[in-house]
């Protein structure tokens, strides 16, 4: 027992410790520059969208990597690396027919950089998958009954969206809000407090997402389901110590969401 045999620890560092501020500032500058160029008509709006995606998701994923870096690892510039990778994947998704498959490179890169996120049991992974399926199924039923949304047909043209979710949307959100923010908060606070903080932050992130439809019922529904998804994923991370079950739950939930075609 360490309490007997080890000296008293100094306590956890500040919650924003090891934040990659220079890299985030560089991303913000780059994105601002691209937006300015787009406004001036020097680059296409598609390029500005790609830059926005890369900056936002690269910032979240890179910050998550920097916050969870082992002491001997220097991940200060991970946001720039992540943004570059997202840019490449998003560009491939735009220019090639099956280019959306390039999104798979982002989670592969992230999990190689942080193998601890992927260490889980089959039971943990199955638990996450069941949770995502139940929540996604409930979303489909409720949306169909309440709003009259049916399942989009054919579903196969959803590949680019699923690719985006797997490679950027779900990966960046889970890595930052659960893998980094919740884990850091939980090392300081109780589970309910840490889960509430991380879930509130993740719901806020989706509510300001320009891709979310602005209808009131959609915003209310998003807040409800994303809060449930966030809280459940926090529990999965706290229970298993791995990010993979939460990634599975969110991926399946967003797959169900994309079936609604609520773009």
């Amino acid at each position, binding site marked *: *027992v*360490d*309490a*007997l*045999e*080890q*000296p*008293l*620890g100094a*306590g*956890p560092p500040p919650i924003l410790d090891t934040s990659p501020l220079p890299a985030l500032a560089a991303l913000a500058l780059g994105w601002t520059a691209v937006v300015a160029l787009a406004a001036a008509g020097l680059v296409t709006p598609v390029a500005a969208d790609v830059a926005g995606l890369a900056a936002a998701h690269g910032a979240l994923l890179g910050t998550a990597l920097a916050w969870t870096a082992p002491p001997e690892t220097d991940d200060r510039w991970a946001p720039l690396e992540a943004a570059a990778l997202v840019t490449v994947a998003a560009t491939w998704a735009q220019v090639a027919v099956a280019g959306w498959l390039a999104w798979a490179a982002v989670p592969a890169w992230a999990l190689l950089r942080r193998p*601890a996120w992927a*260490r889980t049991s089959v039971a943990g992974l199955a638990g996450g998958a069941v949770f995502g399926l139940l929540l996604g199924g*409930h979303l489909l*039923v*409720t949306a169909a*009954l*309440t*709003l009259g949304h049916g399942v989009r047909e054919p579903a196969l043209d959803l590949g680019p969206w699923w690719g985006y979710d797997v490679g950027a949307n779900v990966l960046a959100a889970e890595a930052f809000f659960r893998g980094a923010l919740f*884990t850091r908060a*939980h*090392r*300081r*606070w*109780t*589970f309910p407090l840490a889960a509430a903080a991380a879930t509130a932050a993740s719901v806020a992130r989706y509510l300001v997402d320009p891709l979310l439809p602005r209808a009131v*019922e959609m915003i209310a529904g998003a807040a409800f389901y994303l809060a449930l998804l966030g809280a459940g994923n926090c529990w999965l991370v*706290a229970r298993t*110590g*791995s990010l993979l079950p939460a990634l599975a739950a969110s991926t399946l939930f967003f797959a169900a969401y994309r079936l609604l075609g609520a773009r």
Partner: protein
Amino acid sequence: VTGAAVALLLAAVTLAVAQSDAGPASLWRHAYHAPVALAAVRWGGRGLLVALAAVLLWAPFVLPALERSGPTPEVLEGLATFGFLLGSGALSATLTSRARRQGARYETLVAVGRAIGGAGGLDAALDRVGACLAPRLGGAVGLAVRDGGRFAVAGGVAVHPDSPVARVVAGGPPCFESDAGGGPRPRRLFVVPISAAGATLGALALEREGDIAGDERAALLALGAHLGLALEHARLGARQRRFAAELAGKVAEATRRVVEMDRMKSDFVAVASHELRTPLTALQGFSELLATRRFAPSEVARLGAIMAGETERLGRIVSDFLDLARLERGLAPPLRRRQVDVGALVGDAVEVLRRARSTHRFDVECAGALPPLEADPDALDRVVKNLVANAVKYSPPGSRVAIRAGRGPAPPPTVEIVVEDEGPGIAEADLARVFEPYYRAPGTAGAAVGAGLGLAVVKSLVDAHGGTIRAENRAPRGTRMTLTLPAVS
């Protein structure tokens, strides 16, 4: 089984609601409380998930109606059901969890009491307490309790001087670390004092992956106090048992000594009677002869000498009795001190014995210029004669008896008189007891006459002079009596 029952109930109620035409006002909605209550009672806090599941199952019947018709009374009833389900689920789960925790705490207290009360010392008791607490608290448990100048430790090898446990034991407040580091999940650490009667006896540490909530910390503080009382109780109980055992041992020893003393006194009475009777018989016989018959003057002189010797023997025995009586009353023998020349005293005493006991060889060796003693010459004469007579009595005829007088190890100045014989020696177990009154080493009672008083009287006389006497065995055989007396400086 409970899980299946809950799932079946949820499905059945949902089907019943779906079959009902009443929509959000369906009375079947109240049936959702059954699986919610069942889960809360069975699983405690985790039962709240069933309340959440019931809400999710009920939502598709309420939200479309809200979308279609707005907040009608039926819809409002349906919406209220959300609150009732979540509220009753949370309340039932909380109450069940609290009752279970309370029950578990009582069980833990009882188990801790049993673990402490087992056999073995403090270390074994702490090991048992640690093994008992670890599964109940769901984490690693460490215990450290002061035991004199050391720590008795369970759950570790030693206490680091800067560890949380050491700080708490030193009188610091309870210590909580939200993350003790290492591992993907936060590892909480909480250390509470083990205290009794206002003093900190030790500390109890719990390490666990997952929360240690506020009410649990309060319970651990109470557990620390209970543990302190239980340990103190066990310590007092052990001390009481030890005292009782010591007392019983002392009583048994005293009883044994009383019985032995009684036996020795009985033996003494028999021996003393015999010792008194022998000279008395001789005196009686010779006096009757002298009274009834006429003898030649030379024969009368011989008989008179015999009677004088027997009278002297009788007087010596009576003197020993008187000295013993004083000794038993705790009084020192009366001494008439004056300066005594040790060499002359030893020489005279041995010469007397040499003439009386011609069966042994006597070697007398006195160092030159011995300091004089401030002593009672009669008492000292009795001591030397007694030691030499004992040496003669307990060694075979023809053997040598050595008497040496010399300076003792200085300072202060002392004179040492050593009497050695070539007898069988004294058993090691009896060496310490030969100076006790009435004591006669086993096997010597038949070998030589005596009441067992001689050495006791010798010791009392030596003590009265402020000296010491010790008995030891010589190699390869024989006994050595060493008498040390303070000399005049």
